[in-house]
């Protein structure tokens, strides 16, 4: 019969073995996750001058830190093994080795200085603003990004502001300065292949340099926990050739074209005016009497803003870039495009054939069910009845069809 001690030892060995196995598996999974070939948010694949500066800094620092780690671990391991308790007598105790102590103080200091010099240089380079060629305002709120282009001579000249959401369009090979802020809580703008993270804080203006070498899509993610749908607060930077960027600008400032009378889109426009324009602006939209329809999200939403849906179908994501407006095939067509072909494919926008009506329909049917948001009227006491996110609108299926037909016209 086994003693209690034997039972305990067997149990402990089993638990230890199991813990080691689980730890090993989790660690291996974490390491292998970094090997994903199609990971679009990869800080190790810089696609612009700024992210390349970071890359050029982090590799040598990583190497130095790695060498230090190996030396320290090896020294500790050797000491543990060499001086393990084998029943030997306690050796003579000594105090003080000035040469060793000074050496072990000076050496780390020199290493840190060696790391600090290029680090400070990179920080200074990344905070430069005097070579700006284009300025964009990026404003975070739960749980989407608003992007607007102020009136300026930069960006090839902008004489009326452009406002969009979720996708920041920039000209390739151009120094773009982001002026970031937030309307509600702290968010963090992070598109790893373009630059590092930049927190955006209510009441403050933070700047970040953005530059992309080639046309393409660069994915990003809010990097500061900001509430219920933080994980669904995504963004993309779309880099276009200068000519394509001019085309995009022209499209964004094109006047509103109302749908033809008697069409399903016209019915959708009526539903939009009735239900959506409380929060969502469509520039140039007027009602049957010619009265401009101006959104007043400050009366509905805690942040005081909702995405401007002018030219919605020129973007290919919606709801904080959480879902694609394009079907998977059409999306792949844009994402996989070569730099030369990218602009043309992106500027095609969302056609009826390519519309991802499944997700859009689900969104219109019940937005809070699709994306977690504070939209329960009974729980809005802390915000004085203002929503955080889009509420349930109780649209009928026919109304949803009409609204989708209308949104398709917003190209």
């Amino acid at each position, binding site marked *: 019969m086994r003693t209690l001690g034997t039972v305990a030892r067997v149990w402990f060995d089993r638990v230890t073995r199991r813990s080691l196995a689980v730890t090993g598996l989790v660690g291996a999974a974490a390491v292998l996750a970094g090997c994903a070939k199609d990971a679009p948010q990869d800080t190790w694949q810089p696609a612009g001058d700024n992210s390349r500066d970071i890359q050029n800094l982090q590799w040598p620092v990583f190497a130095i830190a790695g060498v230090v780690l190996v030396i320290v671990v090896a020294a500790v391991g050797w000491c543990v093994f060499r001086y393990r308790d084998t029943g030997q007598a306690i050796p003579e105790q000594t105090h003080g080795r000035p040469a060793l102590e000074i050496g072990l103080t000076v050496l780390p200091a020199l290493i840190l200085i060696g790391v600090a010099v290029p680090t400070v240089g990179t920080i200074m380079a990344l905070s430069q603003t005097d070579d700006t060629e284009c300025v964009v305002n990026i404003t975070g709120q739960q749980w989407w990004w608003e992007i607007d282009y102020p009136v300026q001579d930069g960006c090839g000249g902008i004489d*009326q502001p452009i406002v969009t959401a979720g996708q920041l369009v920039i000209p390739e090979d151009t120094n773009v300065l982001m002026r970031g802020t937030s309307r509600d809580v702290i968010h963090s703008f992070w598109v790893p292949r373009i630059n590092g993270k930049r927190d955006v804080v209510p009441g403050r203006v933070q700047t970040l340099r953005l530059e992309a070498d080639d046309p393409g899509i660069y994915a990003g993610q809010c990097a500061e926990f900001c509430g219920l749908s933080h994980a669904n607060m995504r963004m993309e930077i779309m880099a276009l050739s200068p000519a394509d960027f001019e085309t995009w600008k022209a499209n964004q400032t094109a006047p509103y074209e109302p749908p033809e009378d008697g069409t399903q889109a016209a019915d959708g426009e009526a539903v939009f005016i009735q239900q959506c324009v409380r929060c969502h*602006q469509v520039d140039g939209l007027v009602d049957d009497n010619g009265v401009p329809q101006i959104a007043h999200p400050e009366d509905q939403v805690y942040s005081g803003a909702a995405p401007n849906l002018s030219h919605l179908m020129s973007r290919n994501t919606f709801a904080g870039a959480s879902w694609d407006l394009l079907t998977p095939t059409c999306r792949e067509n844009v994402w996989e495009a070569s730099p030369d072909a990218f602009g043309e494919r992106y500027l095609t926008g969302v056609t009826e054939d390519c519309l991802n009506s499944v997700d859009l329909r689900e969104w219109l049917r019940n937005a809070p069910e699709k994306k977690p948001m504070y939209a329960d009227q009974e729980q809005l006491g802390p915000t004085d009845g203002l929503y955080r996110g889009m509420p349930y609108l109780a649209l009928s299926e026919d109304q949803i069809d009409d609204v989708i037909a209308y949104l398709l016209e917003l190209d």
Partner: protein
Amino acid sequence: MIPTGSRLLFGATVLATIAAVAYGISVGGSLGTVGLISAAIALAILAGINAYVRDSDVSSMDSTALTDSPAARPAPPASNWPMVGALGAMLVVVGAVTYPVVFAFGLIALLAATVEWMIAAWSERASADRGFNTGIRQRFANPAEFPVLAALVAAIIVYSFSRIMLFLSKTGGPVAFGLVAALVLAAGFVVAFRPQVRNATVSAVAGIAVLGLVAGGVAAALAGEREMHPHDTTSDLAADGECDNAEETEVDEHASQTVGAKANIQGEIILHEDGTLVARSLGIGGSSDTMTVVSSNTTNVRFRNDTDEERRLVLNLGERNAVDEETGDTIADEVVPVQRCTQLVADGGSQLLTFSIARSSAAAETPYTFTVPGVDGQAVEVVVP
């Protein structure tokens, strides 16, 4: 055999029980009956304990008990911490249903009493030497007690001081505390130059001074604060639609001229020496006659006055119907401008204007603009996407 002391308690228990029955039958009140039954239960417990320890009597034949029994040991000194703990518990209970601050004070008292009582109990059992026990308690507890006590006394003094200052008139305050400061200085000189003054005398004088300060603070707190004139701010100027006033107002004379949040400005509005008004935006090179700001967002703009006259910057956001101040109703046929403005800024000076515009400028009947009263024909358009 039941000891004598226990007999008394058992007798009292029986009496209380009989009284409870008699009271319940004759008078019929539940309160008295419950009280007497409670007394009977308490007496019964005491009687039981007393009987168990044999009235704590020591046999006269037991010589070792005279030295070894607990009763032979010197009793520990009286402790106030149980009382403080009880007070804290009471405040916790009362505070839970009244004010959070009472609850917080109760909790602090309860925690302090618990810790102090534990330390006292531990030190009293550290050895048979009471002096050593006292010393070890002090070594352990004083490093925490002294800073806490000092902070508490300082807080009381500062709070009393502030109550007195708020009570005294605007001129009386400086005079009174000028005198107090002179007295403190004089006392310091006396102590410094006459070392023969006894410590006890200095302590007594300081104690009386602190007591006087606290008493004055309590009296001042009860009497209330002096009447203070609330100065208008630029918000009042804007609310009254008087931002266009180029003359100096109370707002400019008294309110704070602080320029804050310099690191977070969206841009500058500059009134040049030649009277031109231009905008410079963060990151956008050169000057412009427009400034784009984000909607529904707190925006800081710095106004710089390079002229040789005092000027204020006004942000014009259209008009609204006036509101009857008494009834709060909107007056349909009277409009007032919707504005934000700075104070008058001296020549060469600058000041921050903080604002938030909810609606797109597309919604405005007239463009949003920055203007400077007294400077005609100059405006910077504010564009809100």
